[in-house]
């Protein structure tokens, strides 16, 4: 008995000492004056101290929580080879099925759909010798691999972005969770993360070829329009145009420019179907005479005379893209080339123009050879980049070799630098570049250039990522939550303490002591094991305050019963603790199960609640059973009590 008593006392003291030691950094940092903080920062000790404080969740300190999903559909398109129309048709069907029934397994649907169309998967994926099963297994492996690679790449990007204590984790098979505490510029962070960063160097087609293709599109479009109701449409349009003409006649240069609605190009039904077109009412800016003769070319402007490309006024961009997407038009564009937009508009007067490039589909070189990327301010020697931020690239030896070959063989042609399917710049190759150094122009500001350099350094994502869940908490809400949470906890604590003393007198005071220690232990465990305290976590602690006294209530009620049954004080205490112990164990373990399941299934905030509740349950069992018992034992050993204050 005596030895057991001292062992317990020692355990309690060790626990308390450990707790105080764990909580000291939190206390210290919380009470630092600005001056002291600065001094510690200078000596480099502040970070170390702060890392030992209780970690606050995003909902308490503000920040951003993102759940990303790797775009499987796009990944498979990237992996496939010999892609033809049938392939895209079948893939679209797969996507449709998946979107309608998100529960289905993607690969099962893929296999079934291919089978339905009597296609073998090895036509597009893997090797010809592989069976469907093997191809699927391969694809699954590649998809898993893509997620892991994305995770690494995102981790790199976020690290270089400079967020303190980011948390990036894989969840399930396809998802990545990113937590960015205290982030200010949400949109910038989202861009940085979502960027696929597929960097490609593609040769431009010669101007003659481009002109030829444009002409053919133009003719085809005219043909199509004429085929669609010959007379009715142009008649109507003319009368409308003339009204507009009168209204605008004051402006000198509008004499040849007319406002034509999309109806004129796509026909009434087409335009009505297209509800997403906000520009329907805006009208398109075209040259009236040209429009009748050249429905497509009239939407474009020729910048080639001043060293540019074909350009499209911002207003017309949507219409042009739509024409390019028409299946009839797609057919007449050679299959080895594609139209790609510039990343940024060029302002001319009041108007913004987007350049449109005709590029070889097959890239000469991709970003996988890039070993380093940096940011510089463009020198005065180049008029397009002077004084503006540019991104410099350095390639590995293999890349440098290819780059030297490409530049050497295509002198005086233009090489477009394409990132995520947008052309950043398309410089003319003046000479062979042997060392594998390249620059990208066309950055709006320094931040943008820095972010681009980060994504290029970290590498390209194997497939685009979609943001499927996003939670952002501003710093002010976090502070309010802490204040309200702390206030509720303290008030609840005081009320329970008062009630316990009122109801159980001195024994109640003892239970309060246990409760106080319980709080101390919970906080120390949070700090010591680097758990995160969230708002629901505070709620969990508050709930624990209410439930923690339960063990003591059980014991005290039992002791009272035993006393009523006529036992001596010491015997009553002994059997009170002994009999209540089984009950406490059963009752608390079942609650603990519920909390553990909650922790397993829960997302960030809910986990916080389950965590503090679990810690609270365990710690309250210790304090209620061990701590109060020691005090009782000490008292009954050293004093002869006539009456127990309970």
């Amino acid at each position: 008995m005596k030895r057991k008593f001292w062992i317990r006392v020692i355990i309690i003291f060790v626990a308390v000492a450990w707790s105080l030691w764990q909580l000291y950094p939190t206390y210290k940092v919380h009470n630092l004056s600005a001056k002291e903080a600065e001094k510690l920062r200078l000596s480099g000790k502040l970070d170390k101290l702060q890392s030992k404080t209780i970690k606050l969740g995003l909902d308490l300190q503000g920040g951003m929580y993102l759940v990303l999903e790797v775009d499987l559909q796009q990944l498979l398109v990237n992996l496939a080879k010999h892609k033809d129309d049938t392939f895209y048709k079948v893939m679209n069907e797969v996507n449709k099925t998946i979107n309608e029934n998100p529960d289905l397994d993607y690969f099962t649907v893929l296999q079934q759909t291919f089978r339905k169309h009597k296609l073998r998967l090895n036509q597009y994926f893997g090797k010809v010798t592989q069976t469907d099963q093997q191809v699927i297994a391969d694809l699954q492996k590649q998809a898993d691999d893509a997620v892991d690679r994305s995770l690494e790449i995102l981790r790199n990007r976020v690290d270089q972005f400079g967020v303190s204590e980011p948390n990036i984790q894989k969840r399930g098979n396809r998802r990545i969770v990113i937590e960015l505490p205290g982030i200010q510029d949400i949109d910038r962070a989202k861009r940085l993360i979502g960027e696929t960063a597929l960097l490609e160097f593609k040769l431009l087609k010669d101007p003659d070829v481009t002109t030829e293709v444009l002409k053919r599109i133009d003719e085809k479009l005219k043909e199509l329009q004429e085929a669609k109701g010959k007379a009715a449409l142009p008649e109507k349009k003319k009368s409308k145009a003339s009204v507009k003409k009168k209204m605008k006649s004051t402006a000198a240069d509008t004499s040849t420019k007319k406002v034509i609605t999309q109806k004129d190009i796509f026909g009434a039904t087409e335009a009505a179907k297209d509800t997403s077109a906000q520009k329907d009412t805006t009208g398109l800016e075209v040259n009236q005479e040209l429009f009748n003769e050249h429905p497509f070319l009239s939407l474009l402007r020729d910048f080639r005379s001043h060293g540019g490309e074909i350009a499209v006024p911002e207003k017309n961009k949507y219409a042009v893209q739509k024409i390019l997407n028409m299946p009839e038009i797609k057919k007449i564009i050679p299959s080895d080339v594609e139209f790609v937009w510039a990343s940024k508009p060029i302002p001319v007067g009041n108007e913004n123009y987007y350049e449109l490039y005709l590029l070889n589909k097959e890239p000469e070189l991709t970003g996988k050879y890039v070993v380093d990327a940096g940011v510089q301010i463009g020198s005065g020697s180049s008029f397009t980049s002077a004084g503006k931020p540019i991104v410099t690239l350095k390639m590995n030896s293999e890349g440098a070799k290819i780059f030297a070959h490409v530049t050497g063989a295509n002198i005086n042609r233009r090489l477009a630098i394409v990132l995520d399917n947008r052309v950043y710049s398309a410089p003319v190759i003046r000479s062979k570049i042997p060392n594998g150094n390249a620059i990208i122009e066309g950055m709006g500001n320094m931040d943008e250039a820095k972010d681009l350099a980060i994504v290029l350094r970290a590498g390209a994502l194997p497939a685009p990522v979609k943001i499927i869940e996003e939670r952002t908490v501003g710093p002010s809400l976090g502070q309010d939550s802490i204040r309200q949470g702390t206030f509720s906890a303290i008030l609840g604590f005081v009320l329970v303490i008062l009630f316990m003393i009122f109801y159980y007198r001195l024994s109640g005071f003892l239970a309060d002591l246990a409760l106080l220690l319980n709080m101390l232990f919970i906080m120390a465990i949070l700090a010591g094991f680097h758990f995160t305290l969230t708002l629901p976590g505070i709620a969990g602690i508050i709930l624990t305050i209410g439930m923690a006294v339960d063990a003591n209530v059980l014991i005290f009620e039992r002791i009272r019963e035993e006393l009523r049954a006529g036992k001596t004080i010491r015997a009553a205490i002994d059997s009170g603790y002994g009999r209540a112990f089984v009950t406490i164990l059963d009752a608390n373990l079942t609650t603990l199960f519920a909390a553990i399941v909650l922790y397993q299934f829960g997302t960030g905030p809910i986990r916080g609640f389950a965590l503090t509740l679990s810690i609270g349950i365990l710690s309250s069992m210790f304090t209620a059973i061990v701590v109060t018992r020691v005090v009782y034992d000490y008292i009954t050993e050293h004093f002869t009590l006539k009456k127990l204050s309970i």
Partner: protein
Amino acid sequence: MQFFKKPNIDFIGIRKYGYMFSGTMILIALVLLIVQGPNYGIDFKGGVSMRVKFDSSVTVRMVRNSLSKIGYGNAEIKETSIQTAKGTEKEMIIQVELTNKPDEIASAVSAQLKKDFPKGLDIRSIDTVGPKIGGELRRAAIWAVLFALLLILIYITLRFEFRFAVGAILPLFHDVLITLGFFLIFRLEISLDVVAAFLTIVGYSLNDTIVVFDRIRENLKTRRRETFTQIINESINETLSRTVITSFTTFLVILVLFLFGGEVIHNFSFAMLVGVVIGTYSSIFVAAPLLVEWENYAPRHKKITEARIKKAHRAAKRR
């Protein structure tokens, strides 16, 4: 100080009133569940929810007008007042339901608000949940509850008996259903936090029930002369003061949380508040009486007890 000196209430005798009350509440909950369905928050539906603090002069109408300019005039806008260090301030919750590109809505809405209310605007939080996630979370929540129940069922069967496990698990459905009923009646939103609260209610109510069952188990061993019903009734009475005191302290702190914990966990604390009361009620009026019902249909303990009594009588005669 003692609330109950030596209570001797015939809980088993009045159990049919409890059944009536519980039955009515569950019926209301089920009818509402079928007729109007739960009011899922964006956690489960998918969509965007923003908390925005405005200058005091901004009204809901003004915000709605601003949002209609970008086509979100049908957004749900709720106004709440919050206590801050600077005094009372106005906060609005703007919710736009499920569309294809929720994160674009969030950017569009915040840009529009910044444009129209440049002064005194503070976007306090943005929650965006994709439509796919919503369904998944709903399923995950249901599985979590079922899994928790299974674990508990196994534990209680091992520690007690199967009939106790069933007697402990059934009231949990009862508690969650009735608490859900309150959410349906007041049209409160069911978010992830509320599901967490439901699971906590499960844990809490169980805690209460186990304490009563524990005493029943103990008394079954020691008091061999009494009938099963008597033992159960006495066990409830013996643990009554503990049940009431613990429920009282728990209720007290959750009430504080409900009143002062802030808008963010309001629904969470409301669920807990209702749950603690219902959980306490059910461990007295539903869980233990269920054991009696079970015994009446499949008497085992009764037989044993009667045999014991007979044996005792015989022994007494012989003497």
